[in-house]
């Protein structure tokens, strides 16, 4: 049924799509092409600007959107802090939240590593953030049937 909660769920899913798709686009499309076609300076400055903008969009829009819609959906479903500890839906959601927190931690550290010039560490954190995002989506898809 198409109601207000469909809209909230829609925003939550779109937020996840933009976050995951954005990372994928930067890491798998823009980064290799920039490395092939641009000088080192141009590449570094392009990636720095893109990363900064994506980071700002994440902190200013995506995280507030995901947290707000996520909390609202959980409330609507009757999830309580206590039920998060229970096997089944609660634990699955708790696992998803832990993965989300780890992904955000990795993304934040990635920004720091770039600024500090630790290139390998930055790349590791970017890849792990991308991989972790897939984990979040995996647990999300497991939620409705539990």
């Amino acid at each position, binding site marked *: 049924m198409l109601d207000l909660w469909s809209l909230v769920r829609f925003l939550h899913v779109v937020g996840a799509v933009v976050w995951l798709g954005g990372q994928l686009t930067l890491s798998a499309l823009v980064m290799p092409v920039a*490395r092939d076609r641009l000088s*080192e*300076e141009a590449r*570094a400055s392009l990636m720095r600007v893109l990363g900064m903008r994506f980071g700002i969009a994440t902190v200013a829009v995506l995280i507030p959107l995901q947290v707000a819609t996520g909390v609202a959906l959980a409330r609507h*479903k*009757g*999830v*309580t*802090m*206590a*039920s998060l*500890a*229970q*096997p*089944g*839906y*609660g*634990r*699955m959601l*708790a*696992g*998803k939240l*832990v*993965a989300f927190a*780890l*992904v955000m931690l*990795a993304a934040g550290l990635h920004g720091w*590593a770039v600024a500090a*010039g*630790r*290139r*390998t*560490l*930055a*790349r*590791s*954190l*970017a*890849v*792990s*953030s*991308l*991989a*972790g995002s*897939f*984990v*979040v989506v*995996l*647990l999300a898809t*497991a939620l*409705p*049937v*539990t």
Partner: protein
Amino acid sequence: MTTTDQRVNPRTGPGPGQDRAGLLGGLALGAVMLVVALVVALTGGSAGSGVDARTVLTAGGTQSVAVSLAGMRITPSVIEVTRGTRLVLKVTNADAMRHDLVLATGQHTALLTGGQSATVTVGVVNAAIAGWCSVPGHKAAGMTLRIVVAGNGNAANMGSVAHGATSGESEPVIDFHASPGPGWKAYDPALQPAPGATQHRLTMTVRDTVVEVAPGVRQKLWTFNGTAPGPTLHGKVGDVFIITFVNDASMGHGVDFHAGSLSPDLPMRTIEPGKSLTYQFVANYSGAWLYHCSTMPMALHIANGMYGAVIIDPPDLPAVAHEFVVVQSELYLGPQNGTADEAKIAAEKPDAVLFNGYVNQYDHAPIRVRVGQRVRVWVVDAGPQRATAFHVVGAQFDTVFKEGAYLLKAGNAEHGASQVLDLAPAQGGFVEFVLPQAGHYPFTDHAMVDGARGAHGIFQAF
């Protein structure tokens, strides 16, 4: 995490080795995230497997027992007292999250935060009393308590009481105010249109199925195609139904369709697990017909889920905006995940009365209908023992069809209408009405005791 990170000289590009290290390190970190998330998501299932902690009070008089609420357990989970003991419970929440203790007798503590205590004066105990935590989900997770009465109050017998043999038998208690869990889905009450064809072929398989019948309460029902009620069959007068009946359960079963007339000897015989039979009947007459298991004792087989409806439209039945089927039945709770209690059936003491197989089902999932549009509700009373007085609060039935005849038609000369459709066990019919304004119209068995123990739902007009 990574061993090769180093400051990058802005004049030099990254080497392929560095790239690979970054990629592998990132994938390793991602794998760690996967493992951590899965551990959180999939563990924690074994909390409720312990044996009951049992406290036995041999002396009579006034007894005080310390009860602790923690870790999704109530400790002790069984308190055994001598008949006539005056019992006082000192309840402490020893947990980080909030809990309470509610007794079936109505006494309860307030919602206690961690470390808080409260006293519950149970009074003189002469019969078993169930208790639980009423925070949603906690009872289902194992927060239950039983106060039981020892046999004769003979102190000499008490030594043999602590055998714990009854610990697996803990009987669930229905909380009529609880809500179903997040994954719960209501039984679809909509009547599907009759297929165009005049011949209906269907396989009906009986299986032992663990089904939730009330929030947190599960029974091992014997089901037709996985649900109780079983699938609703819908057709027109003269249609032929060819049913392949398969017994995939653990004991003998049969089937009896009231919608057709035939010699019971062969089609209604009991068949053993692994066997099947073909049951063919012609629906010569219109009506809301019951079908049920034909194996003795039928009260038990029906009470344990083996019932359903066959709807045969009277000729020229007008189409309506909304058409639903409600099958009423009784619930005689056995142990959690067990089968129906035969002693309760014999005593005609149901724990609950259900519409379409779940306590207060359509309170949790109101049935939505349009204001001003005609609603038709087919009702079948599956029993096995109790009648129904089907009523919709705020509505009047201008059309009533019961057991093959119209009792009332819209626009009748008397300008009459009806308030209740009464059905004995196995009878069926339908009512029609129009809801005049937006709002919530409860529907219930107007035998009020049954209406208050689960035979209740809501039409939401919009």
